[in-house]
């Protein structure tokens, strides 16, 4: 495959992911509305919001990092997409593997932080106290989520003897019984629980905590900046789901499968969020140090003997 | 209650005792002993809870009447200590040392009536209105309507109606006025 074709496929994939992210966000809102007995927003509302936001006439800037923060965030989302093999087509040089030849699971794991870093820097330059509070909470929660998640990732890497996401997906092909969900249930359980923290929905949404600390890190962002952040958020949500899909649920062999699986993964966190109220930060940190951490240890212990 | 008041009458020159309810009495004392009486009630008679403090503008007499309402949580009784102060250059001894919440009441009275409480902490700060330059707005001689009309661009053509009258006219224009009087008689 030529580099141009690769680039074309990648851009197309990015477009699909962005729009699917918006649609998924709208669906989440819609589900929330239906649970509350409301009609809810129209499904195209996110696009309208984006359009409105990037068409504001006045914008402010607090300084360079305020500018660059959203850029970091969006680059974080796009980069995550670039390093992730999206659809398994049987060949590593396939059309939807993006630039995953450049790095493996570890790269993806650490590149997740890139977006968060941008958010932190941009929000910091805004000088708003609530932004800083949100970031502090986010970082604490991230560290707590990271521990069980890392254990589960290591467990999966031991299981397949590789860090390559593509190879992990390939090893899960050939039927539902080959999924990590069944072949390595402890790691899968760890990821399924820790995922809730990574997705950042209730009960782990203290980072944003609307109406308590306004909207957390994004408090000072408006207009185009906000539009960028929304886009990045959509991409990141899809990519988180794709990551967990690739690691635990056997990957996807076509876009329809990807959409169905990511929807279900996403729905899991939405479902939990509908049921449980928000945790305080010390509660969420200790929560991850209990059951998910224990499961993560089990996932490793069964492979260390 | 009665015993208590009688016991204190001599020492604090209490006059004008009103026994409102079995557990509520109002006494009037001269300006100079009001704070002493409040202190006495707090420290020796168990009226440890400061309920509130308020002011009435007796413009005709040229007086402000201050009221300190105290509560005894053991006997569940209340005593209101009233005192009159001059309306001109109104000034009263501060009671901020007795309860901290008195600060706020005195700040309010300073703003609303212009009564000064020398020594009370933060007494000069804004309480409800910000940047008020007129006469204290709760004094009866302050003409709020005139002030509002001069200041806030009243919308021309605004009419004021008696709501009952207006609704009757609008909703039941043909019915005679009978029911209202009967209601009142009952």
């Amino acid at each position, binding site marked *: 495959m030529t580099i141009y074709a690769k680039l074309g496929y990648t851009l197309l994939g990015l477009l699909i992911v962005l729009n699917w992210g918006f649609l998924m966000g709208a669906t989440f*809102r819609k589900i929330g*509305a239906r649970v*509350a*007995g*409301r*009609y*809810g*927003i*129209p499904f195209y*509302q996110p696009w*309208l*919001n984006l*359009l*409105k*936001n990037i*068409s*504001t*006439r*006045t*914008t*402010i800037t607090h300084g360079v990092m305020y500018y660059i923060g959203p850029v970091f965030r969006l680059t974080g989302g796009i980069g995550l997409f670039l390093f992730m093999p999206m659809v398994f087509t049987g060949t590593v040089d396939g059309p939807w593997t993006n630039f995953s030849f450049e790095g493996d699971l570890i790269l993806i794991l650490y590149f997740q932080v890139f977006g968060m870093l941008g958010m932190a820097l941009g929000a910091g330059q805004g000088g708003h106290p609530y932004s800083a509070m949100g970031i502090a909470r986010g970082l604490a929660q991230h560290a707590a989520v990271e521990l069980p998640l890392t254990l589960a990732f290591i467990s999966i890497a031991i299981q397949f003897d590789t860090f390559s996401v593509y190879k992990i997906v390939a090893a899960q092909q050939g039927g539902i019984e080959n999924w990590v969900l069944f072949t390595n249930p402890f790691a899968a359980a760890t990821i399924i629980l820790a995922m809730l923290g990574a997705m950042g929905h209730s009960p782990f949404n203290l980072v944003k905590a*609307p*109406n308590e600390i306004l*909207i957390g890190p*994004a*408090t*000072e*962002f*408006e*207009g185009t900046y*906000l539009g960028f952040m929304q886009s990045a958020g959509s991409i990141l949500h899809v990519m988180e789901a794709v990551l967990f899909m690739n690691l635990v649920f056997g990957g996807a062999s076509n876009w329809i499968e990807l959409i169905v699986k990511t929807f279900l993964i996403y729905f899991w966190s939405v479902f939990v969020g509908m049921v449980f109220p928000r945790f305080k930060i010390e509660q969420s940190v200790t929560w991850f140090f209990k059951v998910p951490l224990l499961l993560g240890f089990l996932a490793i212990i069964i492979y260390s003997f | 209650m009665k015993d208590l008041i009688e016991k204190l009458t001599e020492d604090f020159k209490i006059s004008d005792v009103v026994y409102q309810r079995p557990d509520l009495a109002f006494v009037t004392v001269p300006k100079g002993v009001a704070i002493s009486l409040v202190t006495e009630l707090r420290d020796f008679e168990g009226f440890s809870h400061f309920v509130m403090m308020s002011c009435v503008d007796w*413009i*005709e007499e*040229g007086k402000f009447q201050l009221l300190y309402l105290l509560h005894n949580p053991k006997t569940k009784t209340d005593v209101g200590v009233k005192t009159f102060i001059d*309306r*001109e250059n109104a000034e009263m001894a501060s009671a901020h040392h007795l309860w901290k919440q008195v600060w706020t009441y005195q700040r309010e009275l300073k703003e609303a009536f212009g009564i000064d409480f020398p020594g009370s902490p933060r007494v000069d700060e*804004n309480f*409800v*209105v*910000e*940047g*008020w*330059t*007129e*006469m204290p*707005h709760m*004094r009866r*001689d*302050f003409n*709020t*309507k005139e*002030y*509002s009309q001069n*200041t*806030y*661009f*009243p*919308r021309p053509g*605004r009419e*004021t109606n008696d709501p009952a009258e207006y609704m009757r006219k609008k909703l039941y224009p043909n019915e005679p006025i009978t029911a209202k009087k009967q209601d009142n008689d009952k």
Partner: protein
Amino acid sequence: MSEKDMNDKVNEMLQRSEANVKKAEKSFIHPEDEEREVVAPDGSIIKVNPIYDYFSGEKPKEEKPCSGIIEKFLNWARAESIWVLGFGTGCGSIEIPPLVTPRFDMFRFGVQMRPTPRQSNAFIISGYLSVKTLKRVIRTYEQMPSPKYILALGSCTINGGMYYDSYSTINRLDKYIPVDVYIAGCMPRPEALLAGFTKLKELIKEGKGEKANEYARNFDEYKANQKKIIKDWNMPDYNW
């Protein structure tokens, strides 16, 4: 005391207290906002003016709409995505929460609440507005990105309503900030609010939602009115 005597006395006191007030007229600068000096690490002295140093305070400019079909398209998007600031300024704010309940459900109209003015484009002035709150309203309104819309709720914002003679509430909101839609009533029901939103959407789609520009155009006039009643002005002329 006869009635005449009493009137005389009252008049006399009125005159005297006016004199008192004039004598006691003071500048309303909070101690925190007075100019102060701080010592820099190298020992030099820095003068700080808390009211102006921290703010950009530049006057707003009129922002030209895009032309033709593009503006129409953008207006459609703006109309369908109204983000309301969650700021209840008066008693009418109690009418807003029902809007998110299943009975009224404003989300289906593309209306939703937002906690920060930076991300909102509509502001509901809900009912009576005291001078004290007006200051906060002005600040918040100015911080919202343009284009922005004001819905004024209840008769108090129109002509003072039942508080027309109060010393501390304003009578006409449009003298201080431009209003897009008035929703009459005391109080208007949530249905009326929804009707107001529909009206606002119509206005926006017709290209009439340009009140932010009007504010910029008549900025001095608005500012003069605002400053007339807000005596302890402790902010820059325009809050970015």
